[in-house]
Structures are given as C-alpha cells and as structure tokens.
C-alpha cells in the first residue's frame, strides 16, 4: 500500500480554525487526539501534522509534509520552492510598512536614508527596501513588531495587518503595502508527481467545498 499523504497545517493562531474548517468542507475530518502532532483523518489516505505557520513552507519544500496550508506571505518570506496549488481564500491580510503616527512621513520616500526596521519578515523587507533605495538595518522580531516603535527599538515596522486595528491601537500609520496575501495550498514538487491523482482530487474537493474568495 502507498504511504499516507501528509498535510501540514498551522497548529495555532488565526490560520488554524479556518484551515481545519476548509479541510472539513472537503470531507477531511481531523481525528485529533490530545497531545499528538500527527493526526489521522476520516480519509485514510491523508494524515495531518500540526506545525508553526512559518515552518509549513519549509516542511513542504523538504518533503517532511507533502501538502501544507499557510499564507502566501509566509511562503514568499521563507523563499520555499513549492507549488502553490490553490488560493484558499481565507486568511486575507496585507504586509505593510508602518511608522509612528507623529512621524513626518507620508510615503516610504520620506523615510530617513538610514533606518532600523523591526519585522517578522526579514527577506521580504530587505527586498522591499532595496527596491525603494533605502538602506535599512533589519531586526527580526517574533510576534510583536508593532511594539518596537513605542519601545524605541526601530522607527519602522513591516508586519501583517487584517483590519489595521492593532496598528491604530499602537499609534502606527501605514505608509505602503508590500503585498496582499491569502492562505494557499502548497505542495512538495516530488509529492505532486508521485500522488498527482490523489492531490488533484483533493484540490477539486477543496474547490467544491466552497472557498471564501
């Protein structure tokens, strides 16, 4: 018998509930036992592993998982060589450049030539500021980049936002959008060759399950 096809999904955070729901709509119910990282599903061909959303692209690229659900922004940030098979529609967000409200700047052009940027997205930030012709020093922060300006750690942050609410609450204003993102179904390149039929069937079912475009 062929081995099971492994799907990596975010173990917690905002992407976890809709990931589980989307799979459920496609007929894959996760039979989760407490304290396990690998779960069986109602479809014996698939099993689920729970991973950090940021690690999902790497799991998929290196074949620790065959498929993965995670943000387009995260796939690009991790520079993972994977197939993005499907836009799952949920997890809509923007990666934005933001600064403190009282800073006299209306666009990225107005920023000082040399500045410090706090972000969870060092690769995308580096590329963005290079294109903008700004020399920046990048501080990699996990989770709470929006605190950095208040603490005087960095003048600029690059972070994701859904509604802009957290940014406003931290007295930050958006200068530019680096990219728009949604959740994707990522696929390992070899797994896509080996399990092409099973994976395409899943893709069809995910489409049929009504994605929130």
């Amino acid at each position: 018998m062929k081995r099971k096809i492994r799907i990596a999904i975010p173990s917690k955070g905002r992407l976890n509930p809709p990931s589980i729901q989307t799979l459920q709509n496609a007929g894959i119910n996760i039979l989760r036992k407490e304290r396990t990282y690998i779960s069986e599903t109602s479809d014996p061909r698939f099993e689920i592993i729970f991973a950090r959303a940021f690690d999902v692209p790497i799991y998929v690229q290196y074949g620790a998982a065959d498929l993965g659900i995670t943000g387009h922004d995260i796939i690009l940030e991790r520079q993972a060589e994977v197939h993005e098979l499907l836009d799952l529609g949920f997890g809509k967000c923007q990666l934005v450049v933001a600064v403190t409200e009282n800073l006299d700047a209306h666009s990225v052009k107005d920023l000082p030539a040399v500045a410090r940027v706090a972000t969870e997205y060092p690769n995308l930030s580096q590329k963005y500021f290079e294109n903008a012709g700004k020399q920046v020093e990048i501080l990699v922060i996990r989770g709470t980049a929006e605190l950095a300006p208040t603490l005087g750690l960095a003048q600029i942050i690059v972070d994701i936002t859904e509604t802009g609410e957290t940014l406003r609450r931290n007295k930050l204003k958006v200068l530019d959008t680096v990219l728009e993102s949604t959740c994707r179904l990522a696929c390992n390149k070899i797994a896509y060759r080996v399990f092409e039929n099973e994976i395409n069937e899943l893709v069809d079912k995910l489409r049929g399950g009504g994605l929130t475009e």
Partner: protein
Amino acid sequence: MFKFQDFDGKIVALRAEMTTPAVRILTTKMASTPKPIRLFYISNVFRYSQSYLEREREFWQAGIELIGCNTPEADGEVLSLLASSLKKLGLKELRIDVGHAGLLKNLLKATGLDKEKKSVLQGLLGHRNEEQLKKFMNQNNFSSELKEAFLQLSSCRRLEDLSSVLLKSSRYRKTRNYLKALLEVKEALANYGVEKLVFFDFSLVRKIEYYSGIVFEASVPNLGLPLGGGGRYDNLIEKFGKLKMPATGFAVEIEKCLKALTAQSFQLPEEGKVKVLVTSRFRDTAVKAVNVIRNADVVALLDLKKSSKKEILKYAKLNEIDYAVFTDSSLEKPALIYNIKLDTAKNMTIKTFLKNVKKGDF
C-alpha cells in the same frame, strides 16, 4: 556557493558540484584521450542550505560523466545507469522524471514574454493546471499552435506521449528535433528495460544553468527531495578552452539516498565478522595470539590493562565481542576461551579455536 578571499586577495570558492571540475580536468589533462570518455567520481561538495531540516553544508556525491557523444544511446546509457545504480542500493518505488532544457527554453522564447511572465508561466506548467494555463495563454495572446503545444506537453506523463505533440510551422524545426530525440531516447530505455521507471515532466528544470538538452531527477515517494539528477550539457566544455564537445552525466546525493533507505526501513546486512578479545598473565603469548588470530582474518583486540577476568567479560559483553581468550604461557598449550553470547567456556589451543570459528562451530 561558499566564496572567500585568499591571502593574495583572489576570490576562491568551494566546489558546489563536480561536473565543472571534471570538465576542467578533461580539457587540460585528457584532451587527446579517445572519445567517448566515461568518468566517475565520489566526492564531497559544499552548498548552503537554508533549511534547518538539512543543516549540513558538506554533501557527498557519486556521479558519472559521459563525454564526447550526443546520441540517444548515450542519453539512454546515462539514464539506465542512474536507474540501475539506485535500484542496486536497495531503493524501492524509484522513479525518474525527464524534461528537456532546450525544448522548454525554445518554447518559452517563442512566447515572447518578459522574464517575469515567463516565470509565472513556468509555475503554471509546474502545477499542470490546464484551466489556469489556458487562461494565462489567452490573456497573453499565444498563437493557437503554441497554445496547443503547451497544453499537450503539459499533459504528457510518459516519453511515448510526445509522439502526439504537433508543431508544424517551420519556425519550430529545432523544437521538433528535440521531440524526436526524446522519442529515440525512449526506444533506448525500452531496450535497457527501465522505461517503466521513466516519466516525462515538461516543466522540469534543474537549478544549474549549463544544461542544454535532456534533464532528469530521480526520486522515491518516501523522500521529498530528489536523490540525484543530471542532464546533457553540450555547451559547457567549450567555455574552458578550445575543445568543443557534447557531454552528459548525473550525480547522486549519498546522504539523501541513506535517508530514503532509512525511510524505506532498509536493513544493512549484518557485518558477520567475529571479534575476539585476547588477554593473558603472560604478555608475550597474548601479543603472539593476537597476531595469529589477525592473520586468520578474525578481528582481535588486545587487553591493554591486565584487567581482571570479571572486567574482561563485562567489557567484551558491552562491546559486542564474540569471544574472550585467556592464553597460557605458550600458544601450544590450550587457552581458556569464553563464548560471550552463550556464556560458556572451553579449553582449546588457538589453532583449534580458529578452525572451529571458521566452521561456525563453538
């Protein structure tokens, strides 16, 4: 690639693969060797990997190059050698996916798209998503002939499917020749009896720039990364000097093969060598006994510490040693021999002991 500055200011780099060094040696030292030349290597190479699942920076590769020949027979030989080498390792469910760097490059060029759109197209070909591919081609005003060719090539899963791809206009003559060559390679593979393992993937590209013809990757379902791969590089050798020669080859990643074998629960065959620990109150006979035993092609260790009997037996057990030998004052006199696994002891001369061990007795 790892690059750094030498003491005289020159930039030096660690080799990231072996084909380029092999070609360099070929052009300087083997220029007059009759062609075709068949080379092999087993060597370490150095690459950066961003993954923490793969922390290594040094990798071992085993590879071959077939130089001075561009016939379908040469491509067939290289592909079948890759298949048989990996099968011989004990790998199961092996597959080799084949693409063609020239074919893909030519057709991408024929689209007239800019670099960015070309990479979008390549992504779509990789997903093999017909619907999205059609949409993209319509948006970008592909000619109906080119559209048809992309759709057909994208749906080909086997080399023989390529016979149905039609490209009639004269501007695609080169492309047609590539397709013809691939079909001839398929014939050669059938003769070698490996055609069932070989698949076609129009979108397959290797990260290395120098490939000009057929390219391929070997994989098994248990490992998400290719075990190895290679292809034809007909324009690389001329870059090193006057020689202009077609060539092809492959490299297999040894660590990845080991990982795949482990994932397939492969068991290494038992080593089967008998190990003996020798000790004595008489130092000279112990040393002599070690020599005699080693000359009989049995692994012998000398107790270096004049340990007690209890210590010897414990050490032997912990180190998976088969026998402990306590020699007397001369080799002719019977020695006391413990079989550690069976926990039994017998008196016999070293000569008799060796005879028995060879027979598998005691």
